[in-house]
């Protein structure tokens, strides 16, 4: 966290720049959802939308939430929580994805 008030923010241009990115991202997400990317491979639409969402999240975290200027511990806790989310999703889904081929169900 910012110790003195000269760092820990990026001034008007920075804030509005980030803001612009976020708005652009939102609009892009909106319209991209109308393209049939799923014909490329199923879930491509969602993938794209999520990529944009991640970019937006990164912007907000780094600059609005000042992670960029924060001690390593903060970085660590952010990364760790995302990592644990990944664990939860991955290990839950590995069951569901292998279910059909599993001998328990037909």
């Amino acid at each position, binding site marked *: *966290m*910012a*110790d*003195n*008030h000269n760092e*820990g*923010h990026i*001034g008007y241009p920075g*804030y*509005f720049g*980030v*803001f612009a990115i*976020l*708005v652009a991202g*939102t*609009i892009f*997400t*909106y319209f991209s*959802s*109308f*393209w*049939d*990317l*799923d014909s490329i491979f*199923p879930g491509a*639409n*969602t993938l794209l*939308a*999520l990529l*944009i*969402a991640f970019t*937006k*999240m990164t912007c*907000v*975290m780094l*600059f*609005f*939430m*000042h992670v960029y200027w*924060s*001690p390593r*511990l*903060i970085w660590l*806790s*952010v990364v*760790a*929580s*995302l990592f*644990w*989310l990944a664990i*939860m*999703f991955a290990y*839950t*889904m590995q069951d*569901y*994805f292998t279910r*059909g081929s599993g001998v328990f169900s037909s």
Partner: protein
Amino acid sequence: MASHEGTHEEFHYHAPGLQHQFEDMKQQEESVSIGMWMFLVQEIMFFGGLFSAYLVFRSRFPLAFAEGSNHLDPFWGGLNTLVLIVSSLTMALTVFYAQRGNRNMQVLMIVLTMIFGATFLGVKLIEYTDKYNNGLIPVTGWNKRIKDTGASEHTAETSPAKDAAFVLPLVETRTSAAESATHEIHPNPKGEFQWNYGSHVFDYAIEKEKTSGKAYLTQSERIGYFSNGAFDPNKYRDKIRIFFYIYFVMTGLHALHMIIGLGVMVWLLWAAFRGTFSSDYYAPVEMSGLYWHFVDIVWIFLFPLLYLLGRHFLHS
């Protein structure tokens, strides 16, 4: 909810000045910010549970999810996203001015943040009302009860019923939010969850399967939508209902966080108005900011995951 009393504590917790257990201001600020981040970590995991539930059912019944999602209105959803982003900006600026010790701009920014936050909730209210009118709340009896006569209990006037030809749900629900009467009124005496919008995404997928050899239905869908061989609208409706259940739980919890955020803002406004914060002491502003931005981030993910599924099925 207890966790949020938790946040409140975070904020009451440092009145200006040094707490007895700390040596200096730096140590106190450091502790508070780490504490806040740990709190955010647990918030992430809290929503994470919901997201994994979403993930499981989305991967099992993508078509039903797309079907349901097509009845959510991306216009309102997108609008809300923008509103939240703006409020995030103003919140960030609040911290900026707090660091600068600029009291008036602080107050202004906090007020703006609160206005946008309230706007967000207002829009959600509109959306929920639409669901209420169209019998899309998954709980029996929580929807508008419409007598078999076709006239609703609340609004006596009935507009000319449109034939069931399915207009783009995008357009339809936007208007339907305003007056739910423009499309056919479906009797719903018990206020049950009902799905009167056909199985367009499903039909589309089947069509695609016929034309292109590729499989468009998942294993669970081949079991979950059919009863002995034939497509079963009821079973399809049940899957759509799961989508709306997840939609309401997720957005509901998110809205709850917004409300708590607003509560925090009220306190923050009061403190800022009294000129509590200076370039040396602005931790509470920053902490409230972190919370506010977190709620924003959650919505950044909710928007595409709930509102924009399979749009292209019907709109490309």
